[in-house]
C-alpha cells in the first residue's frame, strides 16, 4: 500500500474541441500528497483545478502522464480507485425524484453499507446538516442550497479513505460552513485524506494543511501556509480605521500601487509589497492630517499571496 494518498506525475489533459485550438487544461503537473491531511487546490477560474479533480476521481482520462490514488492508477485500476473515494463534484448533483432520506439510502447502497448502518448514519448526517425536517421531501422540491447540502452530506455516510470536494461550500450559510469545516477536520483525525478546491481563500487558509496553487494548468506554488508566506515575503496588509472616511483616500491608496485594497465605512484595508521600513512611512502618509482611531499591520494573508503570485505570473 502506498504511503501517499495521491501521486501525480507529469499529468497532462488536453481538450481538443472540433474546429478550435486545443486547450491544455492541465499541463505537466507532478506532486504527491501524504495521507491524513487536507490538501487544497487553489487557482483562478480555468486554472485546471476541476479538470485535475475529474482525472483523479476517474471521471476523465489523462492525455499524458499518470496519477495514482492510494497507489492505484486512475486509468488502469479505475474501479479500485472508485472503491476508495467519495466525491462532491462542482455541479449540484442529487436524485431529484427521490426524497432526501432515499438519496442517502441509495448512496449508502452504492457504497455497500448495511441497511441498519445506512439508516443510522443517514439520521446522524441529516441532523448535522439540518435536513431532518426535509427527510421525506423530494429533492426536486428543495432550494438550490438545500440540494447542495444533500450532496455534500452524502459523503459523510461512507468511510472511504479519500474525499474529493470541488467547491463544496458553494451555497452554504456561514454557520453550516463552520460545522462542515470542523467535520472535515475530524475526518482527517480518523485518517481520511481530503482534497478540496475552493474559491474562498480564507476557508483554505483555515482548513488546508498543504496547498497547491495552479494557474493555466501549471503549478505556481506549493506548500503549507507558512511556506507560501515565505514566497511572499515583503507583502504586508494594513488596516486603518479613521474617525470618518477621509476625502480622496481611494486616490491615495491607488497611488501606493497596492496588490489589493478595500474601503468599508471608516476602515481601509490595503495589501502591498514593500521593504519593512517603508511600511511605516506609508502608514504615516495615509495618516497625515487625518484622525486615525486604529491601525493594524499584518503579514500577508493567503489572499495576498494568491493575488501576488497570479499578478507575477501574468507579468511573466
Amino acid at each position: 500500500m502506498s504511503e501517499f494518498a495521491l501521486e501525480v506525475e507529469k499529468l497532462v489533459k488536453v481538450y481538443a474541441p472540433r474546429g478550435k485550438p486545443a486547450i491544455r487544461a492541465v499541463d505537466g503537473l507532478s506532486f504527491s500528497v501524504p495521507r491524513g491531511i487536507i490538501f487544497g487546490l487553489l487557482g483562478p477560474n480555468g486554472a485546471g483545478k476541476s479538470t485535475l479533480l475529474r482525472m483523479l476521481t476517474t471521471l476523465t482520462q489523462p492525455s499524458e502522464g499518470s496519477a495514482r490514488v492510494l497507489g492505484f492508477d486512475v486509468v488502469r485500476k479505475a474501479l479500485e480507485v472508485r472503491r476508495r473515494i467519495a466525491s462532491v463534484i462542482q455541479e449540484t448533483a442529487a436524485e431529484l425524484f427521490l426524497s432526501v432520506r432515499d438519496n442517502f439510502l441509495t448512496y449508502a447502497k452504492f457504497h455497500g453499507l448495511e441497511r441498519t448502518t445506512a439508516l443510522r448514519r443517514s439520521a446522524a448526517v441529516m441532523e448535522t446538516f439540518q435536513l431532518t425536517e426535509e427527510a421525506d421531501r423530494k429533492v426536486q422540491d428543495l432550494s438550490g442550497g438545500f440540494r447542495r447540502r444533500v450532496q455534500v452530506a452524502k459523503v459523510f455516510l461512507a468511510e472511504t479513505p479519500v474525499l474529493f470536494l470541488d467547491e463544496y461550500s458553494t451555497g452554504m450559510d456561514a454557520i453550516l460552513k463552520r460545522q462542515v469545516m470542523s467535520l472535515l477536520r475530524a475526518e482527517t483525525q480518523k485518517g481520511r485524506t481530503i482534497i478540496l478546491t475552493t474559491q474562498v481563500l480564507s476557508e483554505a487558509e483555515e482548513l488546508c494543511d498543504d496547498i497547491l496553487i495552479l494557474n493555466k494548468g501549471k503549478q505556481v506554488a506549493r506548500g503549507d501556509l507558512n511556506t507560501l508566506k515565505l514566497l511572499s515575503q515583503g507583502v504586508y496588509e494594513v488596516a486603518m480605521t479613521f474617525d470618518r472616511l477621509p476625502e480622496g483616500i481611494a486616490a491615495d491608496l491607488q497611488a501606493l500601487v497596492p496588490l489589493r485594497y478595500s474601503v468599508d465605512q471608516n476602515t481601509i484595508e490595503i495589501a502591498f509589497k514593500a521593504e519593512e521600513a517603508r511600511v511605516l512611512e506609508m502608514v504615516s502618509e495615509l495618516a497625515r492630517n487625518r484622525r486615525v482611531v486604529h491601525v493594524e499591520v499584518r503579514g500577508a494573508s493567503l489572499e495576498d499571496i494568491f493575488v501576488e503570485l497570479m499578478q507575477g505570473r501574468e507579468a511573466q
Partner: protein
Amino acid sequence: MSALGAVFYRESKIRATNVTFIFWDLFYPLCYMLVFGVGVNSALGSPFAAAGVDYNAFFLAGVLGMASFGIASNTSWSFFLDRDNGIFYEMLTYPLSRSEYLLGKVLFNVLIAILQAAITLLLSRLLFHLPVRWELLPLLLLGMAVGTAGWFFFYAIFALRTRRNDVFNAITSIFYFVFLFASSMFYPLEPLPAWFRGAALANPITWQIDWLRYMSIGLGDFHRIAWEALAFVGFAGAAFWGAVYCLQRQE
C-alpha cells in the same frame, strides 16, 4: 453483484415514484392490441387467415417487440435526466464499473419487460383466445430480456454521444420509423418488394420479432429464426461494447 444491485435499487426507487408510468409500461402493449390489432383484424383481415392465424395472433409478437423497443428508448433517455440533475457524473465516481452501471440500469427495465410480456400473453389468451405456446414461454421471455437489453445498449450509444436531448429525440423518432416499419412487426415480409424485404431482413428488430412470434404462437421457420437469434445476440453484444466505450469516454 452489490454494484449491480445498487443500480437496480436506484432505478426501482426512481420508477416507483411514478406509478402511472409503470402501469402504462405494463399494460400498453395490450392497449395497442385492443385498438390497432382488433381494428386491422376486423377491417383488413389476416395475411395468414388460411393457416388459421388471425391478425391479433400475428401482431402479438410485434406488439411485444415494440414494447421492448419502447422501454429501451425510455431508459436510455434517462441519461439526459441524470445529466441535468448532475447525478450522472457523480455516479461515474461511485464504486462500480461502467459495464455494471449499464447492466444495472437495464436490469429493472428488463424485469418490467418480462412482466409486461407475461401480462400481455395472459390477457391475450383470455380476451382474444390466442393460441399461445406456453411450453415455449421461458424462451419468449428470454427474447424479451435480451431484446430490451440489446436495444437499450444500442440507444445508450446515441444518448451518451449526444449532448442535447432535442437531438436525441429526433434520433429516436427516426429510429422508431425506420426500425418498426421496415420489419416484420406489422406485416409478413413475403409479399413485400425485394428491396424492402432485404432491408427488413437486415433489421435487428425483425430478428427479435421473428423469435418472439415463433415462441408465442409457433409461426415461422425455426432454422432461420435460430440464425436470426444468434445475429441479435451479436448485435446486442456489439451495442453493449459500444455503450461501455462511450461511457468510458464521458468528459
